[in-house]
């Protein structure tokens, strides 16, 4: 039995009168890759952002690595160190070089020794194939390179879980592949991942579970071959036929 990394029970989130998440349940075990799919506005990004508390839930339970997290009493900064996040628009720090982007949090938050942090950062940049870009500023990078730096930056905190919020949606089509390849490699190394994406190829190939969200609820879930080839719900069929 694999260790449980994320458990979400009856999660509710509203923005004003708008109910974005209605009683969502989700389990993610260690080394699992869970892909969230669904139309925009279905709540998948909000669900992801609730997991690292960029959005604060209105109800329900969030359990990270066996510990229920109450935003009122827990130090969320510590929780977030365990849960890395990659954003659609990269959000690299434009006033810092690639290397400084990756070193910033380990040094400032974990008080890592500067040499140690730099060694680590260079390793990670090597891993995402950007060793030669260590000293340039983000503005000089392509979208795909920026996103790979963002992945390295999140990994520098040595998280146990990685969240990806539409990591390839802002990229030119020819740059999508390099980012997906990096993510696939990460999955193969056993990283626990929750990925919001429209890349069905990636979902089919890498996901352990695909979750289809509609209208703030989890409508259907299953292993990729089942969900893609034999969806049970009409809505899922409609959604899949609309994007494939």
């Amino acid at each position, binding site marked *: 039995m694999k260790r449980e990394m994320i458990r979400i029970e009856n999660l509710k989130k509203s923005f004003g009168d708008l109910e974005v998440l209605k009683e969502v349940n989700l389990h993610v075990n260690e080394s699992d890759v869970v892909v969230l799919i669904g139309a925009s506005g279905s709540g998948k990004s909000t669900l992801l952002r609730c997991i*690292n508390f*960029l959005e604060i839930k209105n109800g329900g339970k969030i359990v990270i690595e066996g510990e229920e997290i109450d935003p009122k009493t827990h130090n969320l*900064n*510590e929780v*977030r*160190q365990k*849960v*890395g*996040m990659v*954003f659609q*628009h990269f*959000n*690299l*720090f*434009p*006033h810092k*070089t690639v290397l400084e982007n990756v070193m*910033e*949090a380990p040094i*400032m*938050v974990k008080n890592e020794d500067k040499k140690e942090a730099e060694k680590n950062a260079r390793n990670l940049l090597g891993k995402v194939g950007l060793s030669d870009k260590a000293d340039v*500023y983000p*503005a000089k990078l392509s979208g795909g390179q920026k996103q790979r730096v*963002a992945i390295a*930056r*999140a990994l520098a*905190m040595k998280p146990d879980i990685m969240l990806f919020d539409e990591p390839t949606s802002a990229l030119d089509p020819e740059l999508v592949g390099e980012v997906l390849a990096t993510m696939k490699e990460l999955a193969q190394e056993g990283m626990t991942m929750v990925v919001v994406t429209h890349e069905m190829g990636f979902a089919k190939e890498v996901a352990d579970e695909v979750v289809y969200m509609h209208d703030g609820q989890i409508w259907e879930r299953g292993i990729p071959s089942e969900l893609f080839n034999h969806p049970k719900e009409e809505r899922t069929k409609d959604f899949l036929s609309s994007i494939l």
Partner: protein
Amino acid sequence: MFDIAHILDVLIESYPLFMKGLWITLKLTVISILIGTGIGLIFALFKISGIKVLNWIANIYIALIRGTPLIVQIFIFYFGLAELGISAFWSAAFGLAMHNGAYIAEIFRGSIQSVDKGQMEAGRSLGMPYGLTMRRIILPQAFKRALPPLGNQFIIGLKDSSLASFIALSELFSIATTQGSRTFDEMTYLIIVGLYYLVLVLLFTLLVNMLEKKLSAGE
């Protein structure tokens, strides 16, 4: 009236006196701008804090300063602080600092809010606390964007310091008026003091431009 040779004569002759005034003007400007920048930053952070009480304090402060003439503020500080035994120079410095601070607060607020909110989220998602993210990630970017309007405010602050002459501070402008009325040659002295301000502003503009170039290097 515009006898250039005469103006040059007076310029050279009055140079030591004006240097004394220039020194006071510079001290007054630099001190009031430094304090004003600090005040501005604090009130800008109040305004974006999302904490109601702090919002109110900042709004009231900015409304009071923007809603009243600077000369009134300078006199209020002068008479108010004189009772505490504070000199005319320091009451003028504080008055100008409070005045500049309100405008600088709005400049900083705008530039902080212009930084993409993804930057704060990226910092927070890495486990960085709010204050640390603000200091390391948001403010350096905000400051760069604030530089052109800040430079502008500094120039206004420099010129506004001439109002300190009303509380008998012998800065540049008061030297011009006293010398002018002493010699009945007001126009010459006003032209000269105008030239002093003009040169100061031009030098300062160059400095800001250099700083802007330096800050945007590499990006």
